[in-house]
């Protein structure tokens, strides 16, 4: 018995020495769908975050370790993933990637006081009433409003058709704000049609609704997969209005096998474009392509900015790997009120509600690449 105690004490001493010598790295939990239907977003976030963490670790100083867990875009699995990373003593969370799981995890994290920064869950429900949850991406209403303002300011269309997914909070959130702002600005919405699942394949009826109403601009606050179907089916009936998308449209050119001529002239509002020529974006794009063999989308850029935002705030507040998550949570909330980060997706600052402020850019697809619209 005595021997055992002695051995244990020796062990404990060596371990405490070891940890005193190399400072404990800052553990950040990342939750997102790495498999399943939304896997494309989760993997983009995982790789974007890893690139940022590797850059930070290469600098020396505070080291970052990511614990990346799969939630399969499922709220229940997201809670399991959350428990997993908290058992692993994560100090803060980058996640989750998609809205429905994020709402579930945010409720739990609010309860237990864990700081959460979601790269891409854009619903206002994610942050509402929770002082410890922040977003890197635009909110849905913010995008809808910006899109209507842009269409009015640049006089892009007089008769507007809308096709949106009314079973998806993202799409519905954007549409409602767009509708309200468009009415304020005197834009005429002539056709609104809906679909109720991203698995929906037949859009002949929705396209016909806009076509028959004579819409010269069709607003598509939806993801690029259904959008690619709408573009193909509009072409089949020789209907060629201006298609205007939001950040969900980003990625359409990376669809394997996609006929890029279909997207010619499509406009979209997005904070990040891989074709942007500034050095930082290009470096990020090269690193991402090296890892994944494809261009990064906005999700990857948001995750990259998210890790830098957490790192900057942690440095400012003196948070290390030994800080408890409750303590880190309060310090980070304080930091984010004044934090300013210059990222790939713009100049980021946060409101205490958790919403980010940054300026969206309008791009038009010309010759298969994004061109900035001034």
């Amino acid at each position, binding site marked *: 018995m005595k021997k055992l105690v002695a051995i244990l004490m020796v062990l404990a001493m060596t371990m405490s020495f070891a940890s005193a010598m190399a400072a404990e790295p800052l553990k950040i939990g990342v939750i997102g769908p790495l*498999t*399943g*239907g939304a*896997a*494309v977003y989760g*993997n983009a976030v995982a790789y974007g975050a890893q690139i940022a963490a590797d850059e930070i670790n290469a600098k020396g100083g505070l080291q970052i370790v990511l614990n990346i867990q799969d939630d399969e875009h499922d709220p229940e699995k997201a809670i399991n993933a959350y428990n997993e990373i908290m058992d692993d003593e994560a100090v803060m969370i980058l996640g989750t990637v998609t809205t429905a799981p994020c709402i579930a995890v945010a409720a739990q994290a609010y309860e237990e006081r864990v700081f959460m920064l979601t790269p891409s869950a854009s619903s206002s429900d994610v942050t509402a009433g929770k002082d410890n949850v922040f977003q890197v991406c635009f909110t849905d209403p913010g995008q809808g409003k910006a899109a209507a303002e842009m269409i009015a300011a640049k006089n892009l269309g007089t008769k507007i058709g809308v096709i949106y997914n*009314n*079973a998806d909070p993202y799409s519905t959130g954007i549409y409602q704000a767009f509708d309200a702002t468009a009415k304020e600005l005197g834009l005429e919405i002539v056709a609104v*049609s*809906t*679909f*109720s*699942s991203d*698995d929906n*394949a*037949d859009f*002949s*009826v*929705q396209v*016909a609704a806009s076509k*028959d109403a004579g819409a010269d601009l069709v607003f598509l606050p939806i993801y690029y*997969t*259904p959008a*690619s*179907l709408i573009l*193909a*089916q509009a072409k*089949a*009936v*020789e209907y060629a209005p201006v298609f205007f998308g939001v950040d969900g449209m980003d990625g359409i050119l*990376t*669809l*394997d*096998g*996609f*006929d890029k001529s279909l997207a010619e002239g499509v406009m979209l509002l997005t904070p990040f474009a891989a074709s942007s020529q500034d050095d930082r974006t290009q470096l990020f794009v090269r690193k991402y392509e090296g890892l994944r063999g*494809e261009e990064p989308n906005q999700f990857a850029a948001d995750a990259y900015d998210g890790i830098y935002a957490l790192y900057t705030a942690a440095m400012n507040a003196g948070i290390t790997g030994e800080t408890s998550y409750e303590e880190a949570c309060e310090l980070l909330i304080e930091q984010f009120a004044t934090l300013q980060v210059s990222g790939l997706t713009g100049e980021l600052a946060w409101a205490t509600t958790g919403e980010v402020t940054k300026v969206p850019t309008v791009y038009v697809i010309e010759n298969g690449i994004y061109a900035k619209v001034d």
Partner: protein
Amino acid sequence: MVSLLSHLLNGISLGSVYAIIALGYTMVYGIAKMLNFAHGDVIMIGAYITFSAVHMWNMPPVLAVVISMVVCTVLGVLIEGLAYKPLRQATSLAVLITAIGMSYLLQNIALLVWGPNPKSFPSVIGLPSISLLDGQLIIAAETIVTVLANIVIMIALTLFTNKTKMGKSMRGVSEDKGAAQLMGINVNLTISVTFAIGSALAAIAGVLLCSTYPVLMPTTGSMPGIKAFTAAVFGGIGSIPGAMLGGILLGVIEILGKAYVSTELSDAIVFGVLIIVLLVKPTGLLGKKVHEKV
């Protein structure tokens, strides 16, 4: 009026795809008395094979479709031999669960092989649309090819089951497996051939489906699979003309429901009609009532 016509054509085109898929369900059910829920996923695999052949190996579309049919046929026979044949004497529930498991297995294999990113399927038809009535009515080439393919398949299958020896054994097995065996029909071979034909049709259905609706994901086959299964039940499961009729009616109801009632309620309307039909005529539109002698 013109828009009604255009919706009708879209409905018939969508319905024709359902009909071709439904043929696979109905033939397998008629002969092996099992619901092959993995059928929808064979469609997805067929579409992926065509996609890879055209897009990555630059093959001509027709050759790609033939390769996809061959692969799906082999896959169908393999699935039957490995997963269903050992369960021939088991309860129907065990077979059903195996089929559902097979469906998930295929989806996850596709996820591993082709990755989670959706693919945009290149139309293998590549003909221009036809413009009628001064451009008011535009018919996509895919619509015409789908409907024609459906008619050709239908005629070929009817001839096959009525005129060939294998077709005769199929009818025999579907009527009474035990008696057919006693008459010297190779039941296992007949069932394997049925799976082979059903899976080859699935490959064609996959290509037509993805040519009209060009997005391909590991879950692409599941919803059309369920709809086609509904179509098979609607038309009378086990009946080949029933699958055809059920499929086309389902497609037309779905599109007209979307166009004139509500885009959200179209599925509710489709399945509502199914319930009514089954209440009035439990064997489906063209299903036969089988009297069991005790």
